[in-house]
């Protein structure tokens, strides 16, 4: 039996946590995002990997269609203060509930504080361990019911 992650979505039956991993913006490589994607998979989650150069709109579209629990945004470009809030705003505008957002990348403390105040549940710097990322994603995914 595969080891299913506990989740509050669905009718009582547990299903794996579903995570969208995307790298919005224009920067070129997605190694870090891929490492995180694989780690989450190995922790029993279903990861929908969107890859590079996705617009905030297409990320939210995908999250809705995939009925994701969590959106993980990987950023290197320094555009986090525009891209991350944009995703959050689109989720709000479309009245999507039950999808939380986390972000990873090089994000200064001050920005991280502001992002948290906008509802970003978790923020990971380059030094974050995979264990702590897995743990936090599980927590964020479990925090809300459908």
């Amino acid at each position, binding site marked *: *039996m*595969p*080891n*299913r*992650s506990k989740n509050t*979505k*669905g*009718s*009582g*039956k*547990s*299903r*794996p946590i579903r995570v969208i991993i995307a790298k919005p913006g224009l920067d070129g490589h997605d190694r870090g995002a891929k490492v995180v*994607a*694989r780690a*989450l*998979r*190995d*922790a*029993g*989650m*279903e*990861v*929908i*990997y*969107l*890859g590079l150069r996705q*617009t905030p*709109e*297409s990320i939210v*579209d*995908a999250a*809705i*269609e*995939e*009925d994701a629990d969590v959106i993980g945004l990987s950023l290197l470009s320094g555009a986090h203060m525009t891209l991350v809030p944009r995703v959050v705003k689109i989720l709000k505008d479309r009245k*999507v509930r039950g999808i939380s957002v986390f972000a990873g990348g090089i994000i200064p403390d001050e920005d991280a504080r502001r992002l948290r105040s906008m509802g970003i549940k978790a923020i990971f710097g380059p030094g974050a361990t995979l264990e702590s990322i897995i743990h936090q994603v599980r927590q964020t995914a479990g925090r809300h019911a*459908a």
Partner: protein
Amino acid sequence: MPPDPLVRRLLKGDRVALAKLITEVESGSPQGTEALRSIYPHTGKATVVGFTGPLGVGKSSLISRMVGHLRKKGLKVGVIAVDPSSPFTGGAVLGDRIRLNLPPGDKGLFVRSMATRGQSGGLSQGTRDTVRLMEAFGMDVVIVETVGSGQSDVNVRDVATTRVVVLVPHLGDDIQSLKAGLFEIADIFAVNKSDLPGAPEAVRHLREMAGILMARTSWRADVVECSALNATGIEDLWKSIERHEEFARKDSSAREELAERTAKELRELVQHKMDERVRLLLSEDEGMQKLIQEVSEGRIDPYSGSELLLGRITGLPSKSPPKRKTTPRSAR
């Protein structure tokens, strides 16, 4: 009026409702089953096409082109991309969301990635059910992508009327070594990456093979040359799909195949239900707990034990087991 508000929203074309209901049917929840029952009259109308073939041959790229092509015709398209789950953790990386240059929020396209969740065969009941939800949502065409190079993807037959097997030219001489499974399911061969050398040879070769292969029906597999990169051959491929759909509607051997598929689904649904009941009985029923004990102590043999269990489930009398006075097996 269906009682479930999600179902009502689905029938009105609400994408969130479709997404949520897919989650329900995928996990086989009672709400999902109930929803499938009430939408059933709205299903069976879409053209359901399976795209299968080895990893990296360009299935997703080709589907992206096909979706663009169909959207231009004004057709609404659902895409289901099936990927294997890890048998060890149950997790999966689903990297198959097709990339399109459609306006964001295009209502005529819905893409869902799906993990096999440990079901053998690479396609689960969840896929069949998701096809139906997409039909009820109003999709004209549903495309199912499965990865594979042989036996495991034969199950694409269970959901799709038309099966496209995607190959590439430089498979060249290796084509013979492809698992027979792929040849058996193909209604159409798409030789993708025809921008690379060797495409005409591959096409000729496949045509010869298709000619000598034993056919399931009176249909002879089409071979279509295309390139997702250069967007060539897409219309040819669609024409071929339509031709096969037309054939499947009219031909009696194709209708027999549909009957087989239906019987298979019924069998699988019953098997699944039985399995759940057996599991429940064995873990929760007191009498069954006793039976397990008696079998494990060697007082009843497992063959008779299983008859007793079956009797409990079907309500039919079973052969009474020979009671043994012998010492338990554990004495060995």
